Each structure stands twice: as structure tokens, then as C-alpha cells.
């Protein structure tokens, strides 16, 4: 369905990634945000606080990230599309509730504008060191989807996509920005509302007596109901059966957790968004995401000017990780070069998927700035030899 025009600020804008992310959320239909100030993400909710009273909806600054990350879920069950925004230290605090959203299948969006870590780290400077945490940060076995914008325009587009994926799969979706993308100001085109595709909530149409909150009919995504509609359903973070009732046996655990996994993994190909360039016949493929992909592009261009056959693969979705694609490419390439603003996180996935068929070379960076393209070029050249 089309976006609600009330939330769409159609026009050509010159704004930064944080602001564009907020507009993306509004365009996607988000009408509730709960937040807590943390650099470099705060502007997202500051803008939302300013915009939402004239669009219709609610923003509340909660007392901490623990509260923010679950207040938004209460709002989802009350009928809203909802999100929160944070950075490293707040992201760590939100982990329990990320798991709660995955377990209860609450569709929602968490935005992490990554900064230097660990701990307080570098509040105003970039890193991409929360990537594995995004996947594994909460306890237990669960799945999430993570998107990595590399420009303010993508902050807008991918935030909408995040909400759409959240509704389609009833899963928490992460928008993994970084401080540079969040604070860089570029042209952002916001189209007319009828040009924006928005996925509605998978709301049940079943009569009250026939409805089971966690029953699925083969597509693995149950139909949702909201509080106040007469369904009198129960939601719990305990292992539960189709009635939503706690059922703490190994059998129920196996059934539930495997469905939650399969729900995402079986659709991994559909969810994946990759930017590919000159992969055919490449000797070396540079795999990158977020701001690093823009620095890497410079290195790739320089390498190609030197006559090297370098392909580019940009992870727009980082999770679920495109294992099959990497495995296929590994068969025909000498090496993957993986620059990241961390000491090697997504590169571990690349190496795992490559399974030794291609060399995997990490180009780490402790964070606080972006790579020097020369450093990436050097490793591309070595790998190509």
C-alpha cells in the first residue's frame, strides 16, 4: 500500500543521515518513538519529537534505553509502528529487549548509529564495531535483519525498508548506521507518498474464537492482533505454544525456536540487498558496507586504473549474511578484501562462507575515522598478485 502522505515530506532536501532516517520512519508510517539521548544518534529522535505532533503520533523520551527499547514494543501492541534510536552503550542496554521482540515476534525497528567503542569510546566519531553484536547481542538463538545505509538518501530509503521487513516478518529490524553517515549532509530526495511502498501490519481477520496468536499456516509468520480489539490474547517472553501460553518443554522450544530461525533464513535470498559491480572475471572482490563502502570505492577505482580486475560487493543487508552468494563468488575469485571500521567482524562471515576456496583479507581499522583508501588499495594489489 502507499505511504500515508501526512508523514511524507516530499521534496528535495539537504539534510544529514540522522534527519533522513527520521523522515524515513515517518514516511514508513512510524507514529511512535521512544528514545534516550546518545551521541551521534540523538538528532533522529529530536527531529521526530519536533515533527510527530503535527503528523500525528507520539514521542516520549524515556528514562533510559532499557525503558525506550520496550516502550516502543508496548506501542506496537497498542497498534502503532514504532522505533528507537541509539548508539553503542545504549545498544548494549537494549539487547534484552531485542531478544524479547524476536521471541514475541514484535515488528519494530532499532537504529544504531555506530560510534567508537567499546564502552564510552568515541562518542562523536565513527566505527562499525557493533556488527556482530547486532546479530548475536541478545542471549539465546534468534534471528534479526540488519541494513547498512551508506548515505543520507539510503538512511531514508532503508529505514522505510526496515519497517517493511519488520512487518513482513514480524521481527526486529536493525538499521546499522555509523557516525559519518549519520552526520554527513547530502541531497535527499523524498518522493510523493504514492511512490512509496509501505507494508501494512499482518493483522488477523479471524473471528475471536478462531484466533491463536502464534499459529502459522505454512508461511511461518503468525497474524497479529492488537490490545483492545477483543482477542484477549497472551504474549510472553517464555517459550510458548500457538496459544501464546508458556509451555516450557524441549519439544515446544524446538518447534518455536526453529520456526523463528526458519522464518528468516528461508527468506534470506528475498531479504538480501547487495550492490554488485564487475564481479564477473574479478581477481579480487572488495566487500564493504556503510561509510567504508564509499572509501573502498575510491580504492577500487584506483586499483582498476592500475589495470587490476577488482569487483565490488556492497552489503546493504548485513544480516542475514549472504552466505550462498559469497560461497559462489569464492569459487571464481582469488581473494576477498574486507575493509571495515572494526578489527574484523563481517570478515569472519566472509571467511566462513568462503570456506577456504578464496583467501579472505581483513582491512581493519580501530575506529575514530575512516580508512585511507591507499591502505585498502595496497591490500587489493597484494591480493591480486
Amino acid at each position, binding site marked *: 500500500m502507499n505511504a500515508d502522505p501526512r508523514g511524507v515530506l516530499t521534496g528535495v532536501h539537504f539534510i544529514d543521515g540522522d534527519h533522513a532516517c527520521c523522515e524515513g520512519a515517518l514516511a514508513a508510517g512510524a507514529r511512535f518513538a521512544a528514545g534516550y539521548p546518545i551521541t551521534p544518534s540523538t538528532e533522529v529522535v529530536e527531529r521526530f519529537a519536533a515533527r510527530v505532533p503535527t503528523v500525528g503520533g507520539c514521542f516520549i523520551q524515556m528514562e533510559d534505553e532499557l525503558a525506550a527499547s520496550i*516502550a516502543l514494543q508496548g506501542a506496537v501492541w497498542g*497498534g502503532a509502528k514504532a522505533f528507537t534510536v541509539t548508539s553503542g552503550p545504549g545498544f548494549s542496554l537494549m539487547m534484552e529487549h531485542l531478544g524479547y521482540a524476536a521471541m514475541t515476534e514484535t515488528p519494530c525497528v532499532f537504529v544504531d548509529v555506530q560510534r567508537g567503542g567499546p564502552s564510552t569510546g568515541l562518542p562523536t566519531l565513527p566505527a562499525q564495531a557493533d556488527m556482530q553484536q547486532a546479530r548475536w547481542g541478545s542471549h539465546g538463538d534468534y534471528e534479526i535483519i540488519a541494513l547498512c545505509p551508506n548515505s543520507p538518501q539510503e538512511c531514508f530509503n532503508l529505514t522505510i525498508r526496515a519497517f517493511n521487513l519488520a512487518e513482513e516478518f514480524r521481527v526486529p529490524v536493525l538499521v546499522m548506521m555509523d557516525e559519518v553517515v549519520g552526520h554527513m549532509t547530502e541531497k535527499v530526495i523524498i518522493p510523493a507518498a504514492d511512490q512509496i511502498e509501505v507494508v501494512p501490519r499482518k493483522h488477523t481477520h479471524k473471528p475471536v474464537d478462531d484466533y491463536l496468536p502464534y499459529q502459522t499456516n505454512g508461511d511461518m509468520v503468525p497474524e497479529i492482533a492488537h490490545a483492545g480489539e477483543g*482477542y484477549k490474547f497472551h504474549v510472553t517472553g517464555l517459550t510458548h505454544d500457538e496459544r501464546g501460553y508458556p509451555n516450557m518443554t524441549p519439544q515446544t522450544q524446538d518447534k518455536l525456536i526453529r520456526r523463528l530461525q526458519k522464518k528468516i533464513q528461508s527468506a534470506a535470498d528475498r531479504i538480501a540487498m547487495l550492490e554488485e559491480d564487475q564481479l564477473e572475471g574479478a581477481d579480487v572482490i572488495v566487500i564493504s558496507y556503510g561509510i567504508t563502502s564509499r572509501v573502498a570505492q575510491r580504492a577500487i577505482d584506483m586499483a582498476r586504473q592500475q589495470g587490476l580486475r577488482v569487483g565490488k560487493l556492497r552489503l546493504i543487508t548485513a544480516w542475514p549474511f549472504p552466505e550462498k552468494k559469497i560461497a559462489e563468488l569464492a569459487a571464481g575469485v582469488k581473494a576477498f578484501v574486507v575493509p571495515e571500521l572494526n578489527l574484523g567482524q563481517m570478515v569472519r562471515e566472509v571467511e566462513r562462507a568462503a570456506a577456504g576456496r578464496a583467501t579472505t583479507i581483513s582491512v581493519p581499522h580501530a575506529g575514530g575515522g575512516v580508512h585511507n583508501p591507499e591502505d585498502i588499495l595496497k591490500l587489493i594489489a597484494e591480493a591480486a598478485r
Partner: protein
Amino acid sequence: MTNHLINGPVNPVEPFLRSDRMPHIWCPGCGIGTTVNCFARALIESKIDLQSLALVSGIGCTGRVAGYVKLDSFHTTHGRAIPFATGLKLANPSLNVVVYSGDGDLSAIGGNHLIHAARRNIDLKIICVNNLTYAMTGGQTAPTTPEHSITATNPYGVFEPSFNLPHLMDAAGAVYVARWTTYHVRQLARAMEEAFQKKGFSFIEIISPCPTLYQRRNKLGDGLETMKYYKEKSKVRHGTPTGEVGLSMTGEIIVGKFVDRDRPDYQTMMRAQYKEVLGERYVENPGLPCS
């Protein structure tokens, strides 16, 4: 199991229970079930539309109430029922949102949320069953455990002062604060009724036995003996300054309604502020529930 009486009258509480989940997990002599009876009675008497009532709980023995009542109910994370309930209420202000949770869940891990929601006067009804311990996990010290008690984590006796929850709630800004015990079933049901009618942050503390852990470790008898202690040692003193209603292990229990005042709730203040500043441009929640 369900009521097997054929052609017999129905338990007035039964329509509020998920009978298919009976029997519940609470111990013999535990008072939580008693509080649920009072809750059901209050719902009947206040004629609240059950469809618009949502119940949110945290983790613990009292937290299990959410799973046993036939309402839209949410068993959330430890300490975080109140922020979840806040989001729920803000997204759909027509809901009546009750938070039903225990003393450890609400005042320890949930303490920060408790005081902020009270400060903001979010329109929530908090039913705090206080059995003076962390019961579900085996009877550890809670912020409400009276001094000198023996617990699983204070095997030589609690030496720290305990929270006086009505005082805390009064100071934080709650508009309705009452305490009863599970002995005071009629007054408790009435207090819950009053809280349902009241707009703003209401807090009802219910002193309840935990015979298996707190009472047993402290040689205070079983559930029945504890109820008799409540009967004997409770003093109904409405309006007592909340600073004076602290609890001790075997002393007096001051019960009653301590705070009943009026101040605008969070959403009323929010709307007023936006209307004043934005005038015509202010749009309240338009298209919720979202499609």
C-alpha cells in the same frame, strides 16, 4: 482443570480466568490468587469494559498473573512492565492499562521506571503484590525485605533498611497510594475499583504471604498463620503520612488509603502543551491502530 460441577452456579471469578491453564503454579497459602479474586471483583463492580483492559506484568510469581487472566495480557521482561505499559497506553489512550507485578520486579530492577512513571503521572494502575522477597527464584532479599529477616542471599540476616513503598510512591508523585494485605479482601477490591476510576498513576501495595520461602525461613508460620498475623497486627489508618508506614518483620502493618489527590496525567499535559504551542497544527493520534 475447569469447574466440574454440573448445573452448578459459576464461580464469579471464573470468567476472568484462563480456565484451560488451571491449576496455577502458586504455592499453598500464597496470597497472589487472593489478590486476583479481588481484582476480578473490582472489575465486576466497576463495570469496566474488559475489551479495553490490558494487563502487563513483569517477571516473578506475581508476574504470572498475566498468564492466568482472560484479558489482553503481556508478560514482559523483569522490571520493565511499566515502560511497556507506557508505550501501550500512549499508542492507544482508550485502553485501561493495569500493571500487575511483584515487589522485586517493580521496586528493584524496575525502580527507575516506577519513579519516573509516577513523576509523569502516566495513567496506569499499578498492583504491587509485596511478599517481601524474590519468591520465584527462591526467596532472595528484595528492597522490601524487612531488616533482620533471613533470606537466601542474606543467610545471616538482612542488615539494610527496606523501602517504604507508599512513601516512595507518594514522593514520586503518584495520585493514588494505598496499602492493604491479602486479609483485607473487601477493602482491596474497593481500592482497585477506586484506582480504576482514577485518572493518573495509582499504586496499590498488597502485603501477601510467601509461606514457602519468606515465612518459612523466618519461622513465621504458614499462609494461614500469616493471614492471622495480618488480621491481628494491621491497623487501618487512612491518610497516615506515608513516611510513617514502614514495615518490620513482625510489627504493626499500617494499611489504608494514604494518598488520593488530583493532578493532570501525562497525556492531558502533553495535549495541553501541544495545543497551546501548535494550535491548529497539532494532530493527535490519527490512524492508530495502524493498518
